[in-house]
């Protein structure tokens, strides 16, 4: 029984092509079309999980036709993609004012979903490159959609870092082709079988450099705060929640998954470099976040920090560490989406994202405040929320693998995370309401709905963690062995 995952790319692609035409009938129809496609896709993906998990596949045993991966990680990524995109679409529907070009926005969103699904389903490094470029083009357009000078600036800064990164990836792919005769994932496993070929280190190193640039890790993070700050709130949410991660971190996790199986020494070498970058990102992100005056910019630095956690776990490359990295991937998507949605809600209600000008919104915007609190506590790793469990798994995995120093660092950084979020929460929501904001009211229900769903999800995942552990995490770990 083969699993055909191609519809996940085809549906949004067709939707993206149709949206501008449907939009001519009316702005609302384009929205409804995209919501419909994404909802359908999400249901399809979720229903496929039990089917996919039945297969006793090794992580490198890709299912389906030659160039479509079908393993659990891919399917899980597809679920995350659709979930994130659906929530952003719903949020955007209520956030944007009536706009002539609204249909193009939804079309771009669907195109980016198609690109991300392509990344998840790629079984080949070159295909990965092509779809990551699709994502890049969609991101530039989405960031700069409202064509303000700031947004264009953010998009340009992203472009200038992203283009050389792609070219690094291509150089790595050409070296891979030279060494093994083909560019697929499977060829990494067979590269000079058995022993540790120095070629593999060079090749993977070059390819990883490209992906590190794209994922916004330290010291390649300079574009991230600018891009997230200047994009409109739903776009920032999409970028931070899923696009940057699919474009960069997904590939990093895949590469570590592949290297682990065939080249233990290379894994150790590359893994330690990755852990260094991850640890640096955690610290720099957390420290820089404390000094920010803009809500979205602080969230951007927080993203850098959390992505550092994922890469730190991926670098350790033990089965538990990889499973923890994937779990954190999922959790981070939920928290960041909620937080960026709330930032958008605050911006819509008060007109500003400058923390120094905000305060005391707790009473006026209770729902926003509560979902923010839940998301922040979850990010900082406070029980009983889902974030606690993923951080716990990461720290445990690091400790078990012998990286005591890094485990301690991860733990200490959680305290920093809690610190800057408390600053944010107290400045924005607690405290006294300034004069100018006395007319502020809670935003419409539609804007709150995605945030509430994610908050409920965070609580549910946190409380039912033992169930999740035995049903999802353990099989994933077994898969990697």
């Amino acid at each position, binding site marked *: 029984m083969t699993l055909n995952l191609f519809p996940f790319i085809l549906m949004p692609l067709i939707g993206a092509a149709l949206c501008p035409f449907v939009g001519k009938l009316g702005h609302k129809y384009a929205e409804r079309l995209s919501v419909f496609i994404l909802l359908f896709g999400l249901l399809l993906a979720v229903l496929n999980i039990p089917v996919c998990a039945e297969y006793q596949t090794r992580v490198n045993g890709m299912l389906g036709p030659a160039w479509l991966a079908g393993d659990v990680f891919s399917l899980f990524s597809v679920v995350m993609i659709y979930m994130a995109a659906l929530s952003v679409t719903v949020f955007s529907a209520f956030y944007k004012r009536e706009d002539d070009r609204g249909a193009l926005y939804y079309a771009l969103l669907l195109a980016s979903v198609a690109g991300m699904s392509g990344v998840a389903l790629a079984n080949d490094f*070159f295909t990965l*490159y*092509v779809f990551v*470029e699709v994502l*890049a*083009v969609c991101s*530039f*357009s989405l960031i*700069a959609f409202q*064509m*303000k*000078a*700031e947004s*264009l*600036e*953010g*998009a*340009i*800064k992203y*472009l*200038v870092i992203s*283009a*050389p990164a*792609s*070219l690094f990836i*291509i*150089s790595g*792919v*050409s*070296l891979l*082709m*030279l060494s093994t*005769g*083909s*560019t697929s994932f499977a060829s990494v496993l067979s590269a000079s079988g058995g022993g540790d070929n120095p070629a593999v280190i060079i090749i993977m190193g070059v390819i990883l450099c490209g992906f590190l640039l794209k994922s916004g890790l330290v010291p390649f993070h300079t574009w991230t*705060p*600018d891009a997230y*700050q*200047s994009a409109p709130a739903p776009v920032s949410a999409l970028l931070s929640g899923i696009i940057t991660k699919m474009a960069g971190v997904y590939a990093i996790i895949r590469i570590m998954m592949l290297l682990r199986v065939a080249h233990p020494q290379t894994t150790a070498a590359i893994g330690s470099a990755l852990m260094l970058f991850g640890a640096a990102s955690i610290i720099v992100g957390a420290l820089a976040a404390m*000094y*920010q*005056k*803009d809500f979205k*910019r602080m969230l951007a630095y927080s993203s850098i920090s959390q992505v550092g956690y994922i890469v730190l776990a991926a670098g350790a490359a033990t089965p538990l560490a990889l499973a923890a990295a994937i779990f954190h991937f999922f959790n981070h998507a939920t928290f960041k989406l909620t937080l960026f949605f709330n930032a958008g809600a605050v911006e819509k209600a008060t007109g500003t994202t400058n923390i120094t000008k905000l305060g005391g919104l707790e009473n006026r915007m209770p729902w926003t405040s509560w979902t923010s609190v839940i998301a922040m506590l979850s990010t900082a790793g406070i029980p009983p929320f889902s974030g606690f469990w993923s951080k716990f798994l990461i720290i445990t995995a690091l400790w078990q693998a012998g990286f005591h120093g890094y485990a301690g660092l991860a733990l200490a950084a959680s305290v920093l995370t809690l610190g800057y979020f408390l600053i944010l929460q107290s400045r924005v929501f607690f405290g006294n309401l300034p004069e100018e904001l006395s007319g502020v009211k809670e935003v419409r229900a539609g804007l709150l709905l995605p945030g509430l769903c994610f908050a409920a999800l965070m609580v549910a995942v946190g409380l039912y963690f033992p169930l999740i552990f035995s049903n999802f995490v353990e099989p994933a770990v077994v898969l990697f062995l």
Partner: protein
Amino acid sequence: MSDLVLSNLLLNWYFVALLAFVGLYCMVASRNMLRIIVGIEILSKACILALLACGQALGNVNLAQTLAITMIAVEVVVVAVALALFVKYYGVSGSLDVWKMNKLKG
């Protein structure tokens, strides 16, 4: 592997490295945004050369050609999008100076 193939490969890769250096230098040192595009283009040429050099050494030139064609198609879209962004930025802010892009700080 025959010596000739290997030395050819090395020669090609040497030039790939030189071209990549020129491209990166151009991107980093330029103040005018359009010159950044020139840098990206030079880097693309280096990559195409790299792909085909590897393909030739491998013997499977057709695979390398196919990849190169796809890559060129992808690059042209990226360059078109980049130019569109720059032209719009010029329209909105009146300048193409990279050093003047400092609205986002912190």
